[in-house]
């Protein structure tokens, strides 16, 4: 073989002439553009973060109403005070006994549109306003969720209650929930061929590689922000970390190397025995993303304390870390995930619907969730497209900021 060492010299000599490798101004402009783009991207991240924070603060501050424990509540929207008269037996408008009732139906005194009031005052008498219902009354507090059209409400207490422990005095139409959710899930992927490059898929890829990749456990943690409208809809967003994963169990030997031309493997060159490569790898691959979801939700009450909430929407997923190894579709060689050209920016669709325990200051919910990557995790230069998906159980706690 020493006789062929002159080949090295020949190569070196040939490579030293660089007439074939001239660059021009366009190349520098392309590099400059990339650097500029990076700067802009950093600014964009900061801008987006500031926007989310700004929006959150605005929501919170706009929806906090003045509170009072003296029976007077100011409604921010129309600026009219609501006066609660605490004098016993002053007015009684109810046409049915109040003691021990959990739900009171009150005929509206005017023809204006129906409005709900939720109260936690059992022996609540009342009222001279356009209120259709008082539900779920309990001592000692009163919570008024919503009032339409009327500037004053008089609530009169029965004689045997000398003092109303009057707490909330919060009246609003919209409110905000902030919370935390954790989602244990099972992660897998849909694999399909990139039609333009499918000729590059190794003939042993499916048997040796894809058939030996499966689902794996994953999880997500998310800080969430929900803006509840005065109807049953709400908008949900947040910021968190999401994991997608796959289990790997490869066991094969590479004995040939593909020879390709025009995006097609034309034939396979047998390797010398010393070049055989045994691939024996068992593990779990993890893909970690920063997730920013944007969902639209709908809620339906089931009982005083329970409601069904459904949400659907999309999440922006920024790939931040990969851990593990994966076989190449072309030569079946094992590659570190960090060496793969994966799409950094991804979009996934997600749907979840579940049961929420709804308390005055917080909610606790459990809901099945499924999310599916709308774009392939691999980039356009890969012959195999991978769309990861997760299905799991979302467990969340939300605190009501201004309820």
């Amino acid at each position, binding site marked *: *073989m020493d006789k062929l060492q002159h080949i090295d010299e020949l*190569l070196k000599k040939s490579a030293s002439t660089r007439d074939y490798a001239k660059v021009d101004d366009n190349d520098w402009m392309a590099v400059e553009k990339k650097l500029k783009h990076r700067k802009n991207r950093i600014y964009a991240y900061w801008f987006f973060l500031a926007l989310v924070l700004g929006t959150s603060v605005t929501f919170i501050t706009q929806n906090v109403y003045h509170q009072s424990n003296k029976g007077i509540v100011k409604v921010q929207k129309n600026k009219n005070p609501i006066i609660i008269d605490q004098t016993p037996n002053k007015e009684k408008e109810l046409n049915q006994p109040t003691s021990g009732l959990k739900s009171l139906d009150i005929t509206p005194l005017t023809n204006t549109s129906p409005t709900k009031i939720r109260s936690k005052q059992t022996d609540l008498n009342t009222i001279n306003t356009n209120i259709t219902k008082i539900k779920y009354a309990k001592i000692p507090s009163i919570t008024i969720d919503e009032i339409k059209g009327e500037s004053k409400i008089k609530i009169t207490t029965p004689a045997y209650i000398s003092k109303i422990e009057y707490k909330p005095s919060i009246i609003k139409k919209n409110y905000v929930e902030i919370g935390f959710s954790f989602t244990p899930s099972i992660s897998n992927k849909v694999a399909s061929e990139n039609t333009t490059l499918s000729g590059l898929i190794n003939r042993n890829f499916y048997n040796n590689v894809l058939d030996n990749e499966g689902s794996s456990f994953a999880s997500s943690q998310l800080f969430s922000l929900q803006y509840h409208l005065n109807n049953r809809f709400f908008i949900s967003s947040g910021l968190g970390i999401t994991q997608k994963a796959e289990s790997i169990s490869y066991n094969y030997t590479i004995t040939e190397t593909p020879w390709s031309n025009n995006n097609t493997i034309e034939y396979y060159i047998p390797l010398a025995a010393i070049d055989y490569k045994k691939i024996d790898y068992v593990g779990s691959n993890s893909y970690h993303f920063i997730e920013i979801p944007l969902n639209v939700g709908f809620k339906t009450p089931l009982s005083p304390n329970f409601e069904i909430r459904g949400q659907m929407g999309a999440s922006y997923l920024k790939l931040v870390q990969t851990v593990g190894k994966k076989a190449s579709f072309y030569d079946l060689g094992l590659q570190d995930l960090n060496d793969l050209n994966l799409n950094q920016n991804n979009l996934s669709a997600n749907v979840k619907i579940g049961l929420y325990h709804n308390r005055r200051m917080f909610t606790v919910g459990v809901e099945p969730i499924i999310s599916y990557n709308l774009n392939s995790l691999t980039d356009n230069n890969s012959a195999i497209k991978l769309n990861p998906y997760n299905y799991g159980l979302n467990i969340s706690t939300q605190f009501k900021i201004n309820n």
Partner: protein
Amino acid sequence: MLFEKYADKMMAVCMRYCKNKEDARDLLHDGFYKVFINIKSFKGESKIDTWMTRLFINLALNKLRHGRTKYYHDEFEAKHEPSFLPTEESSNKYNIEPNVVLDALKQLPDIYEIVLNMYAIDNMSHKEIASELGISVGSSKSRLSRGRVLLNTILKRK
């Protein structure tokens, strides 16, 4: 300026590790982007062009592993008829045009082409090659030998 000084040299590296000029240009842009991002990590332990060459080679290998640049070679096909190589021993005595040699190199399977590139042109040791490619030192030597034979055969055939 760094780009003006080393762009041609790095383009030559890119073209050796890519199968067409377009991919080589992409690699050049990506490589210089990385150079400027990572220039702070250059500690002056080697020459800057050596450091840059390694960075470009690593980047090229990553792309090759992903199958991004290996499948095209139309632009590198020989534009001239190569000189005749009568024997292995005397092949270097003939005046073979550089582009013919490099085109012939491109025709080798990747596993041989890369090792020849790294060993013969980029002066990397078998140990370094083995480390970069995740193969054994023996395998690196074997690929080099087989690569030389194949390249010589191609040059002779031409």
